[in-house]
């Protein structure tokens, strides 16, 4: 993605959605540290960012506990 592309994106109304994604997935109080979240719908947002905004523990599939 070129710089002008990303500036174009962030000049659009999408900036508010990107902040919402950053705030909710990457900030905020973590009480449990055991959260697992699916990827549905998030891939599209990643494509519009030059930096990964989402913490890995929010998106990685949970390992099933071994028997």
């Amino acid at each position, binding site marked *: 993605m070129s710089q002008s592309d*990303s500036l174009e994106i*962030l000049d659009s109304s999408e900036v508010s959605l990107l902040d919402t994604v950053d705030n909710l997935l990457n*900030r905020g109080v973590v009480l449990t540290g055991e959260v697992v979240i699916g990827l549905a719908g998030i891939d599209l947002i990643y494509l519009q960012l*030059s930096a990964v905004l989402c913490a890995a523990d929010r998106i990685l599939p949970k390992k099933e506990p071994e028997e």
Partner: protein
Amino acid sequence: MTPILYIYAVVDAEASGPLGEGIGGEPLRLVHGGRISGVAGDLAAIPQASPEILKRQDAVVQRLAGLFPSLLPARFGESAADEAALATKLAAREGELAEALKLVRGCVQMTLRVFGDPDPAPEPAPPAAGGPGARFLETRRREQERMRSLPEIGPLSQALRPLLKAERIERHAAGPLLGTAYHLVLREGAAAYLAAVEETRGRMGGRRVAATGPWPPYAFAPGGKP
């Protein structure tokens, strides 16, 4: 599927009005753990992240923020098995959460994203006194300090300084997004903040800034990053 208690926020006072409903239309309630309370509701399962559900949760948190003098949003997906489990988690971190709630009282978060080329890396400092271990640690300290600063927006930082109660900076190693500053300002200072950003826009040396807010203070949760 086991139902869960889904957590929206952490507070330290009673609400000034009805808590209303959560993202699934479920009634919200306070769960107390020591001096701290969680705002939570029953859901069938942890929701799947999507732009729509994230916006819906942010709307719930924004509404809740208007009901409490001080509120820390929970990260998306936070849940507990039941009220007893949530109360235990809150009580275990009571001191840390109380301190963070004190900091954000009456405040909102403004987010400033800075785009453009970085300033040239600073000249390497003369070797610190001491052995190789001390020099290594000193170099690491300087690197970490740089990752928590945005000298490229000096004039803007100066203009905003009187409005800030706290600041968190996250600098990026590469890319057009140079860094993000999360600023904690008094709720009534949000308009002045945006005006100061506009005022300084022409003095940024070719760099671009995008300011958004006011938001609930997501970036000022204890133990969060950066």
